[in-house]
Structures are given as structure tokens and as C-alpha cells.
């Protein structure tokens, strides 16, 4: 195996060897060391509201049935029959009390238990040959939820999800807890792009600098009330715990005025005031920053923006949650959901959805130009010249490492972590530093499970 320590050292000082965006050997390491231990998003509880509801989602190539069993417990079963390995569920969503393997007819209840084994007596000699009792589909090694967001970790000994998210939870609440009922998700739209998964994750983690140029067209066609994309530099970027993101600077006003400015009706503002913490409200009301894009390491991103959805001055905010699901070193499946507060008025939900479709997702006018850049970058990163080039990702730092602008003081920004006003690549560097920390540590080898023992490993269920 190639020694990657030089690559990781360059990444840590903000000089990015261009080939990391299209390198098969690094991708193989990412599978083991990044996706083998991180908490990876798979679904939101609102996608499976009723007993028996399920969605099938992947962590890399591993297919999991994420389901709510008859007792309402959320589970994630590895989608592979214990007998010959066939997928027991070949739909991507639905409602089922049981999953029956199409190969030999073994069937499992939606809580994972093996309940049907044709000719058990004749073929195996009954329990004496194969103990059906207590057998179940393999559980995801680790499963947990925060604000309804369900994550899987492939590491049985992963740190608790809340510790992994750390202080980023403060920012996650803006996207996922605007009322006590939380959000509901629609989608995802799914499409494949010939781009490396890290590029989107980095972009959402802190790239305010691309907005005025990449997205010039969206401003030119009058989709925003603010006519100058260069205003983006008045916002701040932040990094806290396992994630970071960008904000917009809001015009002067109090909390209510600022939330209404981005298009929230007063009744939603009132609910946010009950649900969010004092400091969360101060970031908006006192500090004047509104969250926009963000990424949780490794590959889950968020976006919040407020375009016009009709030929009036009214703007409507929307939220999207998106995952950069790696297919290979040069291909990513994007899963893009629309999210909205479950208690929002129906008319708001409809118009917020319209705002989402116009801006992000498979047809979104922002996303179209982003992906064009990322595909082109990935193409060019495959060759030998890309192995000679170190990309400069040091924005916000002088050559000696001092910061161009000091971090915001506590009284200027009431959120946790470190925040800086203006353009910088603090978030991208923090994300890739996490990546480097994982890439240099071999993953523990996972315990093997033999089918005659399946069910003996601890069964993990998400707290909901």
C-alpha cells in the first residue's frame, strides 16, 4: 500500500494534492477508514411514520432496510438473507409486516426475526440442525437518531452519535427543529454525478466564495431580493464538532423582523422562539446571522435559502438535506430531500417546496452549475499532472498561519465553535482534517457473524 502520510500532511496545512479527488487507492482507504467508522445518515423518522413502513438505504455497497417495527421501534437490518445471501427486500420503500426472500422463501418479521423456513424439519432436521429460534437479519452495527435523523455506523464501538455530532447539534437544530414536531422529509431525488463525493461535502461546509461567481446567473434573473451576490462576504462561516457551514448577514432588525425577512410567517417565528435555545435565537436576533449551507462529516449536507417563488417581492425559505453517497472515486449518487417544519401551514409547505425545486436538487438552478464544476474538477484530477499540483485551500490564512481576520468574539456570535466573517476556507480545512485523522488510522477488524449464530450479537434500535 502506498504511504499516504505525505498526502495527509499536505491536506492538514491546507495544500490539497489534487489527485485526492480521483484516486482509486485513496477511495479504497476511505471505504475502510472514513465510511467504516463514521456515523452515516440513512433516513429520517418522518419517512417511516407508521409500523411496517420501510425505506432501503445504503452505506457504500451495504444495503439496509430501515424500518419501524410493529412496536414502533426503528431498526436497520442488513438486507441479506441468512441462507444464501439474496436481498430480502428489493423495493426502495413501502410497508411490510414481513420480508420474504424470493430465493428459497425464508421469511423475516419486520423486527428482523426469522419466522419462516420452508421444510425446516425435512431439510435441516428441525431445530437440531438449524436453530431458527432467535435468528434474525443482521442488524446495522450501530444505529442512533438525533432530531429524527437516523444514522448508521459500521463500527460497533463507535462513539455515541451525540458525542460525534458534538457542538454541531446547535446548528443542526435550525434545520431540523423549528417546532416541537421537527421536520418532515420528501424525496429524495436521486441522481448520479461523475464527481468525487468530497467536493460537494467541502463546498457546503464553507464555500461562500463561490456564490458570487458560480451562481451569478441565479442572482441576475431576479430570484433573490438582494441584488448583489457579493453580499455573501458579510456572512460568517463556522465549524463546531463534526460539522460546519455558512451564514448570511441579515439586515438590521429584531429577531421577529429578521426571521420574517427570510420569509417565515409569524406563527412559525413564534414556534421557533419556543423551541430554539436563547443562544440559538441570539445568533439570529442579536448577531444577525442566518444559517445557509452546512456539512456534517463525512457526507451529509444541508442548505437553507430564501428565493422568490413568484413574480412578487415575497421570498420563501426552504431546507434541503442531501447526501453525497460515494459510488467510486469519480462517481457520487446525490440523494436530495426537501425538508419542512411539520407544523408549518400547508400553503407554506407548498411554496417552500417550490423554492427548493427552483434552487436545489436534480433540476435546481444553483445545483446545476455546482455539479458542472465538480464533474470537471474530478475529470482533471485523474491524471499525473494532478499528482504534481497542490491546490491552495488556505483562504483566510497568511503564509505564517495567522488568520486574515480574527475569529468572532462570543458577544459577536453566540454559537459554539469558531466563526469568521468573510471568505475563508476554514470549514473545508476542518472537514479534510477530520478526513486525514480518519485516513491515517486503520479501522478495527469487524467481528464475523456466522448465520447459525446470527441474532446473538446485540440488537441496536434507534431511540426515537
Amino acid at each position, binding site marked *: 500500500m502506498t504511504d499516504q502520510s505525505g498526502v495527509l500532511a499536505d491536506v492538514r496545512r491546507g495544500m490539497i494534492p489534487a489527485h485526492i479527488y480521483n484516486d482509486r487507492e485513496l477511495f479504497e482507504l476511505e471505504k475502510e477508514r472514513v465510511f467504516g467508522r463514521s456515523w452515516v445518515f440513512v433516513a429520517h423518522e418522518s419517512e417511516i411514520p407508521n409500523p411496517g413502513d420501510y425505506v432501503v438505504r445504503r452505506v457504500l455497497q451495504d444495503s439496509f432496510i430501515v424500518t419501524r417495527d410493529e412496536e414502533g421501534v426503528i431498526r436497520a437490518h442488513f438486507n441479506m438473507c441468512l441462507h444464501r445471501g439474496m436481498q430480502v427486500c428489493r423495493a426502495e420503500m413501502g410497508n411490510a409486516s414481513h420480508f420474504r426472500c424470493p430465493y428459497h422463501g425464508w421469511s423475516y418479521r419486520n423486527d428482523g426475526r426469522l419466522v419462516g423456513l420452508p421444510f425446516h424439519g425435512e431439510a435441516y432436521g428441525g431445530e437440531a440442525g438449524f436453530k431458527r429460534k432467535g435468528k434474525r437479519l443482521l442488524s446495522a452495527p450501530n444505529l442512533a437518531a438525533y432530531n429524527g435523523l437516523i444514522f448508521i455506523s459500521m463500527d460497533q464501538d463507535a462513539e455515541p452519535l451525540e458525542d460525534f455530532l458534538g457542538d454541531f447539534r446547535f446548528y443542526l437544530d435550525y434545520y431540523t427543529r423549528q417546532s416541537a414536531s421537527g421536520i418532515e422529509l420528501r*424525496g429524495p*431525488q436521486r*441522481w448520479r454525478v461523475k464527481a468525487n463525493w468530497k467536493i460537494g461535502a467541502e463546498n457546503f461546509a464553507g464555500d461562500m466564495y463561490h456564490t458570487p461567481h458560480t451562481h451569478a*446567473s441565479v442572482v441576475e434573473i431576479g430570484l433573490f431580493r438582494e441584488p448583489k451576490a457579493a453580499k455573501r462576504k458579510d456572512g460568517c462561516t463556522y465549524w463546531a464538532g463534526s460539522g460546519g457551514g455558512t451564514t448570511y448577514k441579515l439586515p438590521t432588525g429584531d429577531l421577529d423582523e429578521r426571521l420574517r425577512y427570510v420569509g417565515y410567517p409569524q406563527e412559525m417565528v413564534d414556534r421557533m422562539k419556543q423551541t430554539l435555545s436563547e443562544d440559538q435565537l441570539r445568533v439570529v436576533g442579536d448577531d444577525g446571522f442566518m444559517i445557509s449551507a452546512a456539512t456534517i462529516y463525512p457526507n451529509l449536507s444541508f442548505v437553507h435559502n430564501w428565493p422568490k417563488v413568484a413574480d412578487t417581492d415575497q421570498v420563501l425559505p426552504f431546507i434541503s438535506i442531501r447526501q453525497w453517497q460515494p459510488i467510486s472515486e469519480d462517481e457520487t449518487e446525490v440523494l436530495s430531500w426537501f425538508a419542512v417544519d411539520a407544523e408549518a401551514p400547508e400553503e407554506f409547505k407548498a411554496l417552500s417546496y417550490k423554492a427548493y425545486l427552483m434552487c436545489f436538487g*436534480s433540476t435546481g438552478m444553483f445545483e446545476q*452549475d455546482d455539479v458542472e464544476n465538480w464533474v470537471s474538477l474530478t475529470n482533471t484530477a485523474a491524471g499525473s499532472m494532478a499528482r504534481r499540483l497542490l491546490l491552495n485551500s488556505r483562504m483566510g490564512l497568511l503564509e505564517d498561519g495567522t488568520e486574515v481576520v480574527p475569529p468572532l468574539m462570543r458577544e459577536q456570535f453566540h454559537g459554539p465553535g469558531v466563526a469568521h466573517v468573510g471568505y475563508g476556507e476554514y470549514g473545508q480545512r476542518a472537514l479534510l482534517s477530520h478526513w486525514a485523522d480518519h485516513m491515517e488510522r486503520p479501522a478495527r477488524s469487524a467481528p464475523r457473524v456466522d448465520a447459525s449464530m446470527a441474532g446473538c450479537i446485540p440488537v441496536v434500535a434507534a431511540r426515537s
Partner: protein
Amino acid sequence: MSTIRSALGAHASRVQRTGRTLPFNEERHLIAHQWLVDEAWLLDAQAYEEWLDLLTDDIHYLMPVRVTTALGAGYDTSPGMAHFDEDKYSLSRRVARFLTEHAWTEDPPSRLRHHLSNVRTFAADDPDHLVVESATLLFRNRGDVREGALVSAGREDLLRLTPDGWKLARRTIMADDAVIRMQNLAIFL
């Protein structure tokens, strides 16, 4: 197709097809077929301003997200989610964007070919309307590195006779992919 629920289609015309396929030598079929072929040419040429003029002011342009569900589930589109769920305003913004000098995803432009087939025309419950089904296969190629990408879809259109000729009042596009294999849908189908 008319059973697909859209979150934003409340304004859409409710006119529906009646009866069987019109004969291929019947004038109304010929009109509808030519309309679609002429439209495909405009979409290939990315002549989007002219294309926008062919849409009625109450256009509803819908492309649901397809999902893989078990046989008998009763649905094969994602509830409440689409790729396109458009009215005239949102389509006009998309077209306006392509006319700026900063729509990078189409600069340089893609090479596009909308292959059109399986055209079937139906009378509607209003004499000034026709319902037309068709299949479209879009080939899109960009640059010189990547192979081209395809989107295959069935469409149901509602055409309306207006003082300015026949216009598109409603379109439902049923892609045959659950996971779109194209970098974006910066195109129209």
C-alpha cells in the same frame, strides 16, 4: 398518469382524454404529432424563448420522481416529490437563466437529441383540447471526456387550441429511471 398527485398542480387544467386512440390518418393526430416534432426540434436547439411561447399561462409541467416499489404497492412515484413541478413563472426563470452569460452548466452547450416516438392522440372532454402520449429518449453529450447520458421517459400532454395556435397546457413526464443517470436536468423533456 392522471392519477399522479402533485404538490403544486392545483392550478392545472383538469381536461381529460376520452375514447380510444385517434386513427393515425386523422387530422387531429397529425396536428398533435407535428406539434411534438416541432417542439423536439426547439428543445434540441435550446431555443427556449420560442419554446416558452408554446406554453399556456396556466401550464403545469410535472416530472415525478420514480421509485421502486413492490408489485401491488399501488404507487411508483415518490409521494410529494418531483424533479419538475413547474408553473409559467418557474419555467420562465429557468429559461431566463439560460439566457444569461453565467449558466455554466450549459456553457459550452450540451449536444442534445430528443428522439420522439410512440405518439398516440386522444380526443378530450373539451373540443379545444387534445391529449397526446409520446415516448422521448434524450441523448445528451458534453465535452470530450465523458460518454453521453440518456433519459428515457413517457409523456402525457394536454394541448389546447388558442388564438395563437396549439399550445401545451399540461405535461406529465414519467422517467424510466429511479436514479437519474445525468449530472443534472438542465434540459427540458
